[in-house]
């Protein structure tokens, strides 16, 4: 037995995304954001997208290109305060924005990747974020039903990968990538280094390749991946 080869070109990987797709995008700030996959999605121009991401990057970076390009119908996020352009589009009702508590967004994505239908939690039960959510009583406590999130496609940034799609991440670039890499029908990972099978020891793998559909090797990293000088 041997493991199959899922490496492909960035053009082919992104071409599988249709108009109207729900797309999870890894990253928290710069670390872990798959800037190259996002740029290719910008180039190919798919429209009417729902993006699930922790944040909206900053104006002129990452998914802001997709927002500026009019490709985004809806964002499901935890915080967009670093992107005044996205805030303005939200305030002008040009994009719909659904906010989640940060760990609950992570859990909803994880629940999708774990094949669960929902989680029950007391987080946010006293806040605006509870509005419109199903409530379940358990042992006399009111709990919110937070439904699982799955996506048509997840865009993942890994530090290292092998052709089967086993992934490992750098430092705080894990963030939402780990959960998202399990929660989509089609998982596309870009990797800073893509080595042969065995590059990653079985112990070093953080996302097993069995969850991943396509692996794309990155060449030289664009400026977006670098230090943000303020």
């Amino acid at each position, binding site marked *: *037995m041997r*493991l199959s080869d899922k490496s492909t070109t960035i053009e082919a990987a992104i071409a599988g995304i249709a108009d109207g797709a729900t797309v999870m995008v890894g990253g928290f700030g710069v670390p872990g954001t798959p800037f190259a996959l996002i740029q290719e999605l910008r180039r190919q121009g798919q429209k009417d997208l729902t993006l699930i991401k922790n944040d909206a990057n900053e104006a002129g970076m990452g998914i802001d290109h997709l927002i500026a390009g009019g490709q985004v119908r809806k964002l499901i996020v935890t915080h967009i305060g670093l992107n005044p352009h996205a805030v303005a589009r939200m305030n002008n009702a040009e994009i719909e924005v659904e906010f989640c508590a940060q760990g609950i967004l992570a859990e909803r994505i994880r629940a999708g990747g774990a*094949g669960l239908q929902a989680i029950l939690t007391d987080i946010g039960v006293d806040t605006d974020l509870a509005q419109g959510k199903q409530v379940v009583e358990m042992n006399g406590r009111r709990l919110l039903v937070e439904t699982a999130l799955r996506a048509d496609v997840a865009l993942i940034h890994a530090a290292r990968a092998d052709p089967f799609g086993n992934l490992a991440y750098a430092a705080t670039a894990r963030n939402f990538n780990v959960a998202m890499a*399990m*929660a989509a029908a089609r998982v596309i990972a870009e990797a800073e280094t893509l080595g042969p*099978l*065995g590059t990653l020891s079985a112990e070093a*793998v953080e996302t097993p390749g069995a969850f991943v559909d396509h692996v794309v090797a990155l060449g030289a990293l664009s400026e977006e991946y670098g230090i943000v000088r303020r």
Partner: protein
Amino acid sequence: MSDARSRMVARAAREIRPGMVVNLGIGLPTKVVNHLPADFPVCLHSENGLTGIGPTLPDETADRNLIDAGGAYVSTIPGSAFFDSVVSFSLVRSGRLDLTLLGAFEVAGNGDLANWKIPGKFSPGAGGAIELAQKARRVVVMTTHVDRKGNPKLLAACSLPLTARGCVVRIYTDMAVVDITEAGFALCELAEGVSAADVRAATGAPIAIPDTAIPTF
């Protein structure tokens, strides 16, 4: 292993298509790997936390920390990954398992499977069987056609507690390959030396027999 069983195992191995992620149940299903070519592209999953199961090792060279879900000392191959039980069943439940081959006490013509409990006699717990049966994209059973007393295991309805409802799509036995269709059991192939009438007699429910020539294995 009897010759009929060996041929059942060899035939069942052809269920596995290139690139699949597959979980092989404990016992007979595990043995199908012996019938795959060395360079066959497949990812075997063990629910205790391994993708890319390599060959079984003798005690002398075994790693005490590396077993499959049946307790056999296995090994890794290039690209294997270790993970915990939470991730392992996330893979199963989220639909990333293309195929599972499971044993059975009873299979019904509607695809119901009973393979974990015999009330009053055998109730050690279901382990991972319920999730495998309910969530693998394709659930295939390997079993002797009748039990040790000669009673049929393919039935109109399961009498034992269910593992999962309507999950089985195909059954490999020592007598036949049987599909489960909207209309119930349907004979597909016969073991060498077994007739359609033999299969019908050994099956506890109606079984459709094709008019055309039936392939043998």
